[in-house]
């Protein structure tokens, strides 16, 4: 679509701005031209348009002569000639010979004209050829414009979300599979005890040794005091803590079992 027409071909390095007007084709140009033609229809269109012939009233004799000359040059040059070119040559000669026959007066014009089918094909092909050029001229995504594609920032690794129901579901699965339900009845209280067991252990991790009373917070109510005591007793039963008192009324100390062992 540039304003300066690109050369049709280069011959001996010289740009050839236009197709040759006569039938003489510089030998080196022919190959280039053959590549440029999309087939016999394209070549015919070129010949017709070049002579500015009316496609609806093509003079078959000169057209056929020129076409055959091209085909002959291609053949003598040993260029690989698609079979379609030879088929078209036969069609052209057939049409030309029928044009020479007197027309029956009664037949409608369209059917009488031996060129009708060829003209129809040429017109349809030319229409598609122009459509192809128009499509090619349209802005194409990827070629003439680019889609915005902003980088999507993600948290390094999106962490799975876990809901309380998922925990219940997991436990349900355990129960189902092991059929533990008959043997393991765990009460809310027990859960609290176990939670406080963890808390006591956690505090002992920091301090190693705590005074018994330090573990109790009366402000949190009797229930918490009871649960904490139960947790301590359970920890002692499971040998996780040592509870010691040197003498009566002396302070009671709670320490991690392994800490006292070493």
């Amino acid at each position, binding site marked *: 679509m540039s304003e300066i027409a690109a050369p*049709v071909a280069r011959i001996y390095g010289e740009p050839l701005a236009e197709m040759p007007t006569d039938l003489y084709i510089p030998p080196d140009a022919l190959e280039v031209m053959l590549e440029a033609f*999309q087939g*016999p229809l*394209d070549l015919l269109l070129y010949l017709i348009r070049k002579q*500015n012939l009316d496609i609806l009233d093509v003079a078959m004799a000169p057209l056929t002569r020129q076409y055959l000359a091209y085909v002959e040059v291609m053949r003598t040059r040993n260029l690989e000639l698609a079979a379609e070119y030879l088929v078209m040559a036969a069609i052209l000669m057939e049409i030309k010979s029928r044009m020479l026959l007197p027309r029956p007066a009664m037949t409608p014009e369209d059917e009488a004209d031996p060129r009708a089918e060829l003209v129809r094909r040429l017109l*349809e092909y030319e229409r598609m050829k122009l459509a*192809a*050029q128009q499509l090619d001229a349209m802005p194409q995504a990827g070629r003439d414009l680019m889609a915005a594609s902003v980088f999507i920032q993600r948290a390094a690794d999106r962490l799975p979300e876990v809901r309380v129901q998922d925990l219940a579901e997991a436990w349900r699965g355990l129960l189902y599979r092991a059929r533990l339900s008959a043997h393991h009845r765990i009460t809310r209280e027990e859960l609290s005890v176990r939670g406080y067991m963890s808390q006591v252990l956690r505090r002992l991790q920091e301090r190693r040794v705590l005074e018994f009373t330090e573990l109790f917070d009366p402000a949190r109510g009797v229930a918490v005091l009871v649960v904490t005591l139960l947790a301590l007793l359970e920890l002692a039963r499971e040998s996780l803590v040592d509870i010691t008192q040197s003498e009566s009324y002396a302070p009671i100390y709670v320490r991690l079992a392994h800490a006292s062992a070493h």
Partner: protein
Amino acid sequence: MLQPTEAKRVLEAALLAAGEPVSVAALQRLFDEEIGADTLRRLLEELREEWSARAVELVSLASGWRFQTRLDFQPFLERLRQERPPRYSRAVMETLAIIAYRQPVTRGDIEDLRGVSVSASIVQTLESRGWIDVVGHRETPGRPALYATTKTFLDDLGLRSLDELPPLEEIAKTVTLEPAPEPQAVPAADPQRDDLEPRAG
């Protein structure tokens, strides 16, 4: 529920990141369907308006909305590209035109129209580009595949539907009406000029 301005920011981010057209239905998912399609379209129109002075534009295409660079700025952006994507050969473009305007067609139909055989690689080029696909088979011997253009084809050419394709020209008329061009002064509109230029591909 998001404020319209906030919703627009979300829309904008989603479309800028998509890299391809996004349908209104898909965009509704952004908001868990809490924003109706009509409201969404209004927001999209507002967004398009907001972007009208930029080098990137929001366009509505066959499969949805896409942010894309504006054609006028391509000369600048081209400089950043390492290589220009190759143009398709005439054979490919003619095949594409026939499929676009005469769909659904078989390879045989295309060959009849072009007057030459159509290589498998031409069809494959268009298929792998996602511009054409097989939409059925003709119930004739060999059950040849019927090709049609895809939404991606329309998207990539900036179209919303096949109706928006350039109308086919009435060739015969234009020829008879035009005066004979001088051999050395062929008008630019003369279709024989550009296309005799050999193309790679």
